């Protein structure tokens, strides 16, 4: 009640004034009724009431809360002084807003992605299990179905274990909707119980759904249910067609549930959808395994147990060359956020630097102001203004500034977050990013901290309490505030140092991004359009049907206007690993035990290499007749030939491979093509291409080279595909440049953001430099005047002043280069193709900084050298 009263006191006062008026009017009425003249009646009434303002003041004082009243008075004073210096105020608020905004935005992302636990049941007991590849090269390889079965049966540390794998599905069209390619996850029935989640609607899988002979069932994601089925809960129990087969919808997952990633739109039962043999294979690595530890069991125990089981099976089956060598585990959480940890912390550190620079700048500006107001403050304290009062005012001033800055910053942050969420849909857990109470508290916290820090620095510098000195100093005997100038120079050095660190980090990331973008994929990327198709097994059952579809598609596509060349391949360059096979060159003696040869697997149509510009180095491409069972030829990449057939003619040699899981067959090498990269940031790997018309491949990417802008022919081609099969979904319609862009998003995002922060701090630092030097010159106007009067040359004054400003910059530069070297080592993982201590980046940053510093210092220095000594001496 009493605090509220404080804020109502103005209203109360008006109310009371009215009440008093009413009282007096009443009194006058009564007096008149007693027969007194109206003039006299009024006089008596007023006399009787006494002092009206006393009454009002009484109530006002009683309503006031002393500390609050003081604070308000300070606030008003601060507001008034700030209004008098709008340029200063605006600059400080802007600086603080940028610092606080960037930090709040980054903190929100870091918190949502890295700090918040996964929204699953008991995340501290959820681990991912991996196999170690047979050659020991990859410690976190995907798991074979048979190994999972053994783990599930034998491992004691786990309460439950679930298996899952990715799979694309074509959802049939109908009722005016287009067919659509959807990312799905095949999972064992217990995946949801293991994660501790339940469907929002319907039911989860049961053991009886997860068998080869069960009825096909599917669980939808909330997004798919809303988008495609209009949030109609009647869908439960109905059938939808996936890959032209009927699946009964049994449930819908809650909207927050995104596992394994945000792309997953439906879940199906793995033992129902995947051939039983694949689920039993011990050396066919396809799946991921989530384990739920028993209470008290550690991850290390679980990993050890899984490892022992794999080793035992390996000894049992010495003939299976590709079988795993052991097992490893890591936390599910680390698995989900893995790749985003380092970049996010780097960016958070960068924004931290920006905020620190912002605070230092504000402190600097405040010091400058307090120096300018030194005389005023000295007079006030000489007149009895308490020291505490003056300090309070200064801290209040910087708090007000940072509070306004914080409010603007929060708005900036939410705009930035929206942008990030829109542009970075690929980031893990991006869907969980939102501003919540903790984030708001964080924003308020750094606002207060920043304000208090800046205020404290400036107060500390002005709080020497030597009133007399201050008064004397300003009376022209010597140029003032040397101590303060020193403090400001130290602040500046720190500022410049931090800026240099940021610039170096940005420079390295940018250069590495440029290197990445200039990498030669091994194919043409201009005017190439690509799109993916997946033939549903149910309607394209035989190899003949599949081959016929692809042959017809490519024949008709080549006749479309605007199409120069067209080809088909299973996986495009830059689209990722895409699967590999164990190979044996049958003309070679058997390899020593434990030695294995792998090559990436692709399937291509004869015209593909020409269409995408992968050169044919030797031999020939596939022939017309090499289709179906006569497709026994293979084309290998240059690296394949050099690595596996060094010093011999590969043409005519035979490779033994199990391409389609139906057993090993021999393929004759008929051609050698140039290397292409499956992942842009990794060197090419040995690659082999099988004839697509073998008819065992149901997915392919159509690649079209066009004479004009490639995207313009997307529509005619999609129409063509719909003509051939209107139920076929076409997805990932992208130009080759976009394919490359997608795989470099991370690098460009990190580089661009860090660069933005670095440029921001460079601007802040140069403004700081300029401000300090201008201030110093203004302070020393007198001194410079005296020097000139005594015969100092203008050039000398210019040099002196310039040196004065450049010294802190130089010191900061040295500090920053050292700090930058440390920072560079820390971000080594993010760099591609350059060394952390890249000389050109370090030299470039140093030159840039010196250039900017000189620019910032030249104007004040030049002004100093232009001073008219007579004017200067008259200044005071």
């Amino acid at each position: 009640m009493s605090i509220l009263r404080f804020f109502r006191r103005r209203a109360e006062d008006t109310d009371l004034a009215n009440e008093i008026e009413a009282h007096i009017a009443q009194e006058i009425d009564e007096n008149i009724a007693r027969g007194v003249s109206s003039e006299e009646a009024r006089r008596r009434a007023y006399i009787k009431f006494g002092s009206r303002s006393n009454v009002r003041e009484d109530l006002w004082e009683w309503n006031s809360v002393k500390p609050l009243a003081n604070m308000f008075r300070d606030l008003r004073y601060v507001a008034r002084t700030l209004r008098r210096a709008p340029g200063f105020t605006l600059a400080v608020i802007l600086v603080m807003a940028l610092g606080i905004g960037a930090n709040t935005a980054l903190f929100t992302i870091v918190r949502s992605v890295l700090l918040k636990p996964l929204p699953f049941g008991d995340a501290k007991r959820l681990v991912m299990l991996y196999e170690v590849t047979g050659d020991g090269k990859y410690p976190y390889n995907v798991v074979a179905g048979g190994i999972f079965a053994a783990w599930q049966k034998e491992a004691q540390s786990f309460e439950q274990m679930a298996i899952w794998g990715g799979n694309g599905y074509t959802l049939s069209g109908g009722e005016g909707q287009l067919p659509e390619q959807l990312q799905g996850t095949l999972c064992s029935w217990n995946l949801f119980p293991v994660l501790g989640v339940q469907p929002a609607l319907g039911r989860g899988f049961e053991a009886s759904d997860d068998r080869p002979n069960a009825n096909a069932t599917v669980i939808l994601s909330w997004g798919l249910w809303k988008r495609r089925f209009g949030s109609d809960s009647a869908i439960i129990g109905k059938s939808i067609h996936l890959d032209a087969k009927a699946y009964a919808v049994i449930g819908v997952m809650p909207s927050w549930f995104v596992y394994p990633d945000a792309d997953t739109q439906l879940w199906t039962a793995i033992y129902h959808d995947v051939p039983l043999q694949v689920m039993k294979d011990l050396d066919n690595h396809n799946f991921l395994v989530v384990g739920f530890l028993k209470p008290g069991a550690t991850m290390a125990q679980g990993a050890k147990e899984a490892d022992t089981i794999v080793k035992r099976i390996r000894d049992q089956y010495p003939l299976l060359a590709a079988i795993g060598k052991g097992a490893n585990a890591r936390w599910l959480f680390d698995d989900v956020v893995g790749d985003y940890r380092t970049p996010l912390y780097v960016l958070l550190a960068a924004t931290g630097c920006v905020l620190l620079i912002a605070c230092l700048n504000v402190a600097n500006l405040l010091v400058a102001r307090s120096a300018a107001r030194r005389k005023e403050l000295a007079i006030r304290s000489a007149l009895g203004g308490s020291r505490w009062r003056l300090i309070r005012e200064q801290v209040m001033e910087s708090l007000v500034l940072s509070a306004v800055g914080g409010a603007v910053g929060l708005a900036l942050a939410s705009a930035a977050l929206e942008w990030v969420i829109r542009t970075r849909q690929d980031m893990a857990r991006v869907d969980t990013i939102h501003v919540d109470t903790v984030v708001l508290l964080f924003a308020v916290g750094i606002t207060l901290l920043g304000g208090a820090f800046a205020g404290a620095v400036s107060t500390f510098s002005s709080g020497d309490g030597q009133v007399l000195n201050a008064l004397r100093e300003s009376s022209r005997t010597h140029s003032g505030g040397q101590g303060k100038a020193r403090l400001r120079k130290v602040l500046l050095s720190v500022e410049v140092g931090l800026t240099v660190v940021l610039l170096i980090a940005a420079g390295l990331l940018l250069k590495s991004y440029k290197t990445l973008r200039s990498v030669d994929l091994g194919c043409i990327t201009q005017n190439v359009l690509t799109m993916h198709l997946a033939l549903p097994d149910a309607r394209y059952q035989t190899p003949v049907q599949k081959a016929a579809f692809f042959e017809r598609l490519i024949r008709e596509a080549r006749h479309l206007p605007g199409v120069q060349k067209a080809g088909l391949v299973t996986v495009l360059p830059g689209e990722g690993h895409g699967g590999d096979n164990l190979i044996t060159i049958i003309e070679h003696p058997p390899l020593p035990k434990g030695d294995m040869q792998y090559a990436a697997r692709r399937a291509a149509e004869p015209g593909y290499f020409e269409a995408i510009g992968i050169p044919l180095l030797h031999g020939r491409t596939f022939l017309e007749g090499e289709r179906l069972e006569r497709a026994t030829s293979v084309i290998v990449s240059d690296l394949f030939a050099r690595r596996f057939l060094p010093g011999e003619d590969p043409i005519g040699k035979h490779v033994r491979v199990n391409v389609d899981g139906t057993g090993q067959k021999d393929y004759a090498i008929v051609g050698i093509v140039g290397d292409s990269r499956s992942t842009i940031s990794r060197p090419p790997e040995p690659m082999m291409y099988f004839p697509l018309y073998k008819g065992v491949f149901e997915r392919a990417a159509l690649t079209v080279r066009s004479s004009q802008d490639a995207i313009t022919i997307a529509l005619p081609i999609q129409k063509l595909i719909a003509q051939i099969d209107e139920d076929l979904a076409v997805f990932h319609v992208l130009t080759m440049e976009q394919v490359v862009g997608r795989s470099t998003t991370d690098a460009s995002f990190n580089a661009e953001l860090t660069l933005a922060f670095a440029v921001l701090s460079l601007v802040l630092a140069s403004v700081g430099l300029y401000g300090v030097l201008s201030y110093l010159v203004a302070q020393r106007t007198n001194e410079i005047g005296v020097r000139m009067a005594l015969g100092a040359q203008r050039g000398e004054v210019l040099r002196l002043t310039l040196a004065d400003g450049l010294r802190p910059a130089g010191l900061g530069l040295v500090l920053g280069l050292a700090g930058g070297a440390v920072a560079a080592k820390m971000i080594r993982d993010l760099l591609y193709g350059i060394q952390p201590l890249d000389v050109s980046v370090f030299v470039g940053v140093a030159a840039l900084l010196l250039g900017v510093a000189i620019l910032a210092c030249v104007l004040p220095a030049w002004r100093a050298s232009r001073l008219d000594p007579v004017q200067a001496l008259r200044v005071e």
Partner: protein
Amino acid sequence: MKQRRQTDKQDMLQGTLDMLILRTLAAGPAHGHTIANVIERTSEEVLQVEQGSLYPALHRLEDKGWLVSHWGTSENNRKAKFYKLTAAGRKRLTTERSRWRQMVAAIGRVMKEAAE
């Protein structure tokens, strides 16, 4: 009551004024002017209510929740702020009254002793 000295106005007598106001309003809602008149009349002009302390007192009592107020029209058609006793105020009046009785009795005993 006639204010004796400016400095004393926060003391015991202020509590007494509060009690008198509560007592007056127990008879029904009234505005400030009436309250002062009633107190003066009932005390046969012995107690002169200083308007300067009446209004702050009214606001304090309202703040404590013992009174509620609203603007209305007075008997001679003027705007006036009417005060009304709340349930809490009625309870308070009872406590005040018994405290007053004890006080009067106690003072009475002391005075008798002293007189003898």
